[in-house]
């Protein structure tokens, strides 16, 4: 077990294709850290540089106190789980798991002991003598994990280990990997493109985009205080809604104006914002800003749950016309359109939703954006029937449309 440290780590392919840009990260001993981001963001490259499967263009990688830049993978004492399992097809499960130990000329009895123990932990004792091709996807995944565990390495590296499994198995294995980590407590670096996996498993999440680290934080902090529009839109499902807003002064305080709705900004929130950024929030007055609000912070004004919210936020209601209503049983997702002048066009938001940025002439841009609210199951919302929604003003985020950085 060891801490892993990245110091200005950079990866450049060819002359000028930058895959990872000056990455700095201190991973504590025993920490479960998740690299997450859309495809091509450099998360796998970063992992492979730690593993030694990819050269480091500049910067340093430490495992423990040792700079491992020039060490081959076999001398780094790390174990890796691959997306497609990468089990050796000509060896049975026992040989697969014992391969690394055998290469180190470990005593046969000790190899057997470790393999049996790991097999027990993963409940794969029954097929130790089978070849990988005789196993199901989930079983292969367990064997791949087992192969990592028996090593008792300084760190586990996992490269999208669950993405080849079906949805149900994925959820199950997610919990199991979590349990496994609690049990053996080895530093784990886990790469995924799935923000749900990141949220549920990580001690800390590292969000990457275009090779640049966007934010490093615990799942909860990242969810509540995203650094920028990209992180705000990427973390959380359904994604955060974005609207065009203006900041105005009112009665010595501030209000956020969205269309005809005026959402008061609490003194406390304004203070926090100033503290965080080190400058007065007043500089944004009368400027176009981007307002972000998560679906669960929009509630049907007619249900009980909204009452308390409504009391405090009389003014922060908006009228909407639901277009799609999805009932989840425990709650309902209500999709509605924002008016055209409230829609935001941000490159990183477009990227997340899979639209081309600056997609001027398309039908999409003739109307507003789709927004979603996660309302109580008791809501009587009907498609096409106008209704009022309450916004939880205390949960609203604000972003600078130029820099896309969080103001609030």
């Amino acid at each position: 077990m060891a801490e892993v440290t990245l110091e200005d780590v950079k990866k450049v392919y060819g002359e000028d294709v930058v895959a990872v840009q000056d990455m700095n990260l201190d991973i504590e001993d025993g920490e479960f850290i998740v690299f997450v981001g859309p495809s091509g963001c450099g998360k796998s490259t970063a992992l492979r540089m730690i593993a030694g499967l990819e050269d480091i263009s500049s910067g340093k990688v430490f495992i423990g106190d040792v700079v491992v830049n020039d060490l081959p993978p076999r001398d780094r004492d790390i174990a890796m789980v691959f997306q497609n399992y990468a089990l050796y097809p000509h060896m049975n499960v026992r040989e697969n798991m014992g391969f690394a130990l055998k290469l180190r000329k470990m005593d046969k009895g000790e190899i057997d002991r470790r393999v049996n123990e790991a097999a027990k932990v993963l409940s794969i004792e029954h097929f130790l003598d089978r070849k990988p091709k005789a196993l199901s996807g989930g079983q292969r995944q367990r064997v791949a994990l087992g192969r990592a565990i028996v090593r008792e390495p300084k760190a586990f590296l996992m490269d999208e280990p669950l993405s080849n499994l079906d949805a149900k198995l994925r959820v199950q294995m997610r919990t199991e990997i979590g349990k496994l980590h609690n049990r053996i407590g080895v530093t784990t670096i886990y790469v995924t493109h799935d923000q749900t996996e990141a949220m549920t498993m990580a001690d800390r999440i590292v969000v990457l985009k275009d090779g640049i680290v966007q934010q490093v934080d615990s799942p909860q902090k990242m969810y509540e205080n995203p650094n920028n529009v990209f992180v705000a839109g990427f973390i959380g499902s359904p994604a955060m809604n974005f609207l065009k807003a203006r900041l105005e002064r009112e009665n010595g305080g501030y209000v956020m104006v969205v269309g005809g709705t005026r959402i008061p900004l609490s003194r406390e929130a304004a203070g926090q914002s100033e503290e965080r950024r080190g400058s007065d929030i007043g500089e944004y007055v009368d400027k176009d800003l981007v307002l972000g609000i998560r679906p669960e912070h929009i509630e049907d004004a007619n249900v009980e749950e909204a009452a308390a919210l409504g009391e405090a936020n009389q003014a922060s209601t908006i009228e909407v016309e639901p277009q799609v209503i999805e009932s989840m049983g425990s709650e309902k997702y209500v999709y509605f359109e924002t008016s055209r002048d409230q829609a935001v066009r941000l490159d990183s938001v477009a990227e997340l939703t899979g639209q081309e940025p600056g997609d001027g002439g398309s039908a999409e841009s003739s109307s507003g954006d789709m927004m979603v609210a996660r309302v109580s199951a008791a809501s009587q919302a009907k498609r096409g029937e106008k209704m009022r929604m309450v916004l939880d003003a205390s949960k609203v985020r604000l972003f600078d449309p130029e820099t896309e950085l969080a103001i609030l």
Partner: protein
Amino acid sequence: MASATASGSGSKGNFNMVLFYVFLIGFVLVSLFPLLWVFKMSIVTRSDLFQSPVTTLVAPPIADSYNTIFANPDFRRALLNSTIIAGITTIICLFFGAIAAYAIARLRFRLKSVVMTTILAISFFPAVAIIAPLFLLFSKVGLINTYWSVIITDVVFALPLTIWILVSFFKELPKDLEEAARVDGATTIQAFRKVIVPLAAPGVFTTAILTFIFAWNEFLFAATFLFDASTQPVTVAIPNFATVYTVDYGAQAAASVVVTIPLVILVLIFQRRIVSGLTAGAVKG
């Protein structure tokens, strides 16, 4: 053809099946006919050989021709020579071919396609065009009339093919397996030996057979560089069953059959090893 006229949705499929087998049998008969005819020649008496009109099959078959060739010590020696030449050629080709192919398949380097084309270009040379210079060269260095003169030329012509087949085979193997082995603590050579080679076995065997057949059947170089029975392979020895006055066609036919048998046996043995899907289960399949 009854099935072809049968009613139901399967009739068209059945008709296609029949057509397929008719074609298949026809094709096999045409391509195997010379071999069958040679076999027939080897088991009839000398007088039957020259009968007109030709007889199709006469009973009883006789083994005279086979007795003749196996009684000949030069022929027995030639079989051994062929085995040695083809065997050593195959081993050398596989060893260097596998290493070169692995490097080409895995390493990123400039002008890779140029290297591949150059390798292939070696086998473009018409053998007759270089045989005279080679003869002089081998004479100078004293390799003429030794196994090595033929083994070296065979390797030169077989290696490009070996490399090309193996490159495409190594490319098929998932790179992750090799990386897994390296993370597991293997050196590059260990990863190659313990993971890549066992997985590439079907490809390696296929290549081995092709190389062996090539070297076994080679005639031109062997006939040019080797002068006496102590080194000549069977391909050169077969025409020797002739004198100034007569040609022993029966013996030549028998020798041809005997020469073919090792190849058939070889393919049958290794066919079991050429199982596709050996890599099944390595990665998500």
